[in-house]
């Protein structure tokens, strides 16, 4: 397996508490990893640090990009922004989509931010929405969609750019159990079909059970990891295995 994201001795403090306590973590290409743990265990903080949303107080985070390994902890705000829009995709509990945009525009915006023209962006977004079972709903605003449909839009947005790592924070937390299962199917199948790596923070044992690997955090430390222990990787100076960041939708999955 190829390590795609590696964190070493990651430490993050909040006033009066330690959220991450010298955490070592490696995600491999194409893996689906559930990060579980009780509230306050540091799982969301770990996800946010790995995704370049939060800066760790100490430790190193390295992303294996096609050109060369990239140290996230040394990037400035602009560099992290670029990384998030080119390399990463996000699915949050509340979707974090824009309520004033249509479903199609929400997905297309991710591509437009990378410089793709609007027509191409919307065509590709429509392709993704169709593949995720939202054909005919492209022009609906988020308020006109159900919770499960909104999460499908978020799943499409997270992957339309060809993001190599998809981060999901309680993606089914606000859904009923039937819709949760449905959304989880869509997420896992689309991620697997397109060769993405998925990191999902969850409280839900059903979600964790569907992932290839489960990492448990407690008090800011990893207390168990169902995957084989992964040694600290030696990133090649010129990696070749990764898909291009603008890879198109492959559509090879059923929803």
């Amino acid at each position: 397996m190829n390590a795609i994201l590696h964190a070493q001795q990651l430490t993050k403090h909040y006033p009066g508490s330690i959220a991450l306590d010298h955490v070592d973590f490696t995600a491999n290409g194409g893996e689906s990893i559930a990060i579980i743990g009780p509230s306050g265990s540091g799982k969301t903080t770990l996800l946010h640090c790995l995704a370049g949303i939060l800066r760790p107080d100490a430790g190193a985070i390295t992303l294996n990009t096609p050109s060369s390994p990239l140290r996230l902890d040394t990037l400035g705000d602009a560099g992290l922004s670029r990384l998030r829009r080119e390399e990463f995709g996000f699915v949050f509990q509340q979707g974090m989509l824009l309520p004033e945009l249509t479903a199609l525009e929400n997905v297309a915006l991710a591509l437009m931010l990378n410089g793709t023209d609007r027509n191409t962006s919307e065509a590709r977004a429509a392709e993704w929405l169709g593949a995720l079972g939202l054909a005919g709903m492209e022009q609906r605003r988020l308020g006109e969609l159900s919770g499960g449909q909104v999460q499908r839009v978020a799943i499409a947005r997270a992957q339309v750019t060809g993001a190599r790592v998809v981060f999901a924070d309680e993606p089914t937390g606000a859904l009923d159990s039937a819709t949760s299962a449905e959304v989880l199917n869509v997420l896992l199948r689309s991620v697997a079909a397109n060769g993405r790596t998925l990191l999902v923070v969850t409280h839900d044992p059903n979600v964790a059970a569907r992932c290839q690997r489960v990492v448990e955090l407690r008090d800011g430390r990893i207390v168990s990891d169902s995957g084989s222990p992964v040694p600290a990787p030696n990133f090649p100076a010129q990696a070749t295995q990764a898909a291009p960041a603008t890879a198109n939708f492959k559509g090879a999955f059923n929803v």
Partner: protein
Amino acid sequence: MSSLSMALRLTPYLARSNGSSFRETGLRDAGLPILAFGTVTALLLTVAGGSQVFWSWSDDIAGTYQALAVVAMVLLVIPLLTLGASAARLAARRRDDRLASLRLLGANSATVVWMTVIESTVLAAVGALAGAGLYACMAPFLGLIQFRGQAIGSHAWLSVPSILGCVLAVCVLAAASAALGLRKVVVTPLGVRTRQTADGAHWVRGLIAAVVVVVGVVAMGMLSSFGAFVVIIAVMGGCFGLALLALNLMGPWILRLRASSQLKRAKRPEQLLAARTVLESPKESWRQVGGVAMTSFVGVFVGVGMAVADTMGTGADAEATLLVRDINTGVMITLLGSFLMVACSAGVNQAAAVLDRASTLVALDRVGMPRKLMVAARVKAVMSPLFLVAGISAAAAAVLVLPLTGAALLTQPVVILTIGGVFAAGFLLVRLAVAAGTAQIGQVLARPERYASMDS
């Protein structure tokens, strides 16, 4: 338990629960509405105090002053009431989410309406009393303004009952506006939280506005046939007032039309976001730029006033010279008041707009939208319709005064220059307010956890 008594019990509870996060949200929640209500009240009292001077005169020329005072009052009071309503909506909107949640928990419509009305009225009362205090501090200085060759002095001071009446009027405005503004929450508790529908801005608004302007033009053309001086003043003031209200009615519809066309042509992310921001709520977008519509309208009158003063001043006798000087003083005061309103309205609305969209900004940041694009989208959403808005309202004002002045006076260089200067100053004020608002984007993104779980 009655709805009112339940509202009286719940309101302080909700106000207290908000206290823990006051530092983060206090500016939007209480500070901005209080500031806006305070400014509205201080300006209203100043306008009322100034105009009462003219009504204390009874000699031959008093009628001319009174006619001009009515025009100035209408030009200032209508935008002031609009600003007041805007502040009231701001005060009410801050509670939308909580009130919607209360509705979901089973609070009935009446309780929610009462809570909103009570909160808005309390904020309005605090702001209005502060505004009255500000007026009291300014009154001695206002007394130094000269009309008819002498300082107006204590004639411009309002009596305590008048001041309290004005404070009460601001509170009533706030209460009524809050109750009306929350109709959607009361009818559909889920609607606010999920933002199910975009604000409408129907074409009927444009039709009504056009009819009002046409009726105004006809009435202005027939002014001399009304006979009695008081009727002429009333018709003139009514026409200007209705035209300003018509502009307020039509504005959101115009913005929606323009944004729809921009949405179709948008190629870049910031263009798409700017157009969608306007379409999401044309009424809110109008509040961002409506102040400039008002100053542009006033600017035409100021230009005409200055041209009239120029014409009269040539070879005039002592009384006419004094009148010319007073007209100039009057137009300057009107213009100053108008710009104060734009500054206040733009500042309040911009700050509120950024804070209201905090969750959207956090969402955009998460997907990697560069901050400069967020700023560009915000600037574009506000500045792009300004030219159109200013142009339409100046045109409406010009059409209305045309029957009185004729085309020759309207096209004098002093009129054109004045209107151009007013446009430029209005644009500058709004741009500064937008800059102040966008500066808050950094503060929002520095504490994303405060907003990340909000309504998007």
